[in-house]
């Protein structure tokens, strides 16, 4: 039985297989409509979510299965003090696979230690979000036709941005990847990712606070939201929330085939006048999330 807790639980070959499977699902959705008939996914969401929870549930439904679960901790026995371990044990009796989002880092790993069914990390605090990474990789692949030989800028909250952390870990395994880290000092990428991934794997990277300086060099720009829910101090959030705002004017110097990604939801870091720009890929990206999760569910349930 396999779980997906960290993107590195999957080899690059397995990621490539998932991407190919997702592309096949997009091309031939009818061929997959009954693959998970009689199967159920439990979406255990201790934190609010729109895209991730609904895309997991839609993914299972489009495979012919069903979905059950809760969408906030207050709607579950967590509000009575039930542990993650106990919840995982219990839900294993009701569902064939679990997708868990939790505000505490490592909670899905704890669930995977006690569950009798595969557990997917659907986001654990500011730590990891591997299915968003799979979504991002599928989007980059569909937009660029490759996952290597790319210069990718990450902009905004790189400290608490779990999607950034997971995507950097995944991209670091491909050839000729150059990473530009754009953030205010307070929201820089955690030291352990710089040390253990970028430096250890000899990945070319640069840290800057200036988005416009490096924009012309980028093949992909990954924008992120400054996440209010990660701050213990409201004043820090207010000071940093408007650090970067991408507008159509700023894009004048960018490559014509730049791909702009964002894990969404956005607040104001991408102005709405960018939405109509052909380089904006974030809504397509959200759609890709369903297909890659379909491919992942098939893999973890070992459905051919």
């Amino acid at each position, binding site marked *: 039985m396999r779980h997906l807790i960290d993107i590195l639980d999957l080899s690059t070959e397995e990621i490539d297989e998932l991407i190919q499977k997702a592309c096949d699902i997009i091309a031939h959705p009818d061929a997959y409509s009954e693959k998970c008939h009689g199967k159920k996914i439990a979406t255990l969401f201790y934190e609010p979510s729109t895209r991730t929870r609904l895309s997991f549930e839609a993914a299972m439904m489009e495979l012919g299965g069903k979905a059950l679960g809760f969408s906030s901790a207050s709607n579950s026995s967590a509000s009575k003090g039930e542990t993650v371990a106990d919840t995982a044990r219990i839900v294993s009796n009701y569902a064939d696979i679990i997708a868990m989002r939790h505000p505490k880092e*490592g909670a899905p790993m704890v669930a995977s230690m006690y569950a009798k069914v595969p557990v997917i990390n659907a986001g*654990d605090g500011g730590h990891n979000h591997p299915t968003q990474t799979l979504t991002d990789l599928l989007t980059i692949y569909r937009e660029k036709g490759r996952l290597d030989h790319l210069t990718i800028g990450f902009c905004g909250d790189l400290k608490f941005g779990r999607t950034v952390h997971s995507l950097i870990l995944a991209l670091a395994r491909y050839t000729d990847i150059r990473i530009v880290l754009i953030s205010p000092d307070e929201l820089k990428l955690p030291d*352990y990712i710089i040390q253990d991934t970028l430096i250890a794997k000899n990945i070319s990277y640069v840290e800057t606070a200036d988005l416009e300086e490096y924009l012309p060099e980028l093949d992909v720009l990954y924008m992120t939201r400054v996440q209010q829910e990660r701050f213990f101090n409201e004043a820090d959030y207010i000071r940093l929330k408007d650090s970067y705002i991408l507008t159509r004017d700023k894009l004048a110097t960018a490559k014509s085939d730049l791909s702009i990604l964002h894990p969404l939801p956005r607040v104001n870091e991408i102005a709405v006048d960018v939405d109509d720009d052909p380089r904006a890929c974030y809504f397509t990206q959200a759609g890709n999330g369903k297909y890659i999760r379909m491919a992942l569910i098939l893999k973890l349930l070992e459905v051919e």
Partner: protein
Amino acid sequence: MNIDAITDGIVIDHIKAGQGMELYHDLGLENLDCSVALIKNAPSKKMGKKDIIKVNAALDLNLQILGFIDPDITVNIIRNGTRVEKFHPELPLEITNVIKCRNPRCISTVEPGITHIFKLTDKEKRIYRCIYCESKAKSKDR
């Protein structure tokens, strides 16, 4: 100051001065019935001052924490009044329920009954990380 030589047991030597009492507790020596000596600030040619712990019983102590705290510590195993083994503790690949994660966002800080596990991620720099949140461990997290 005279401390009797031990017949069967363990001498933990070259402990940094001041760390002996912490190690005494970390190894659970307060729970032993045998004689245990903690010598503080003993003169040392190499270190100036050092702490020493002598345990007068042939016990199978869990010494994994020694490598995490200071791999330069020396462990001497004594049998029948003779030293039969001398070694520096190795850096354990994993330490379980010795230190706790201090990251307030980590599940291990709130989940009752959780096993606190840290893995060695960088042998050269002696870096251990929590398996749940990947935060770096500090020896003071004990």
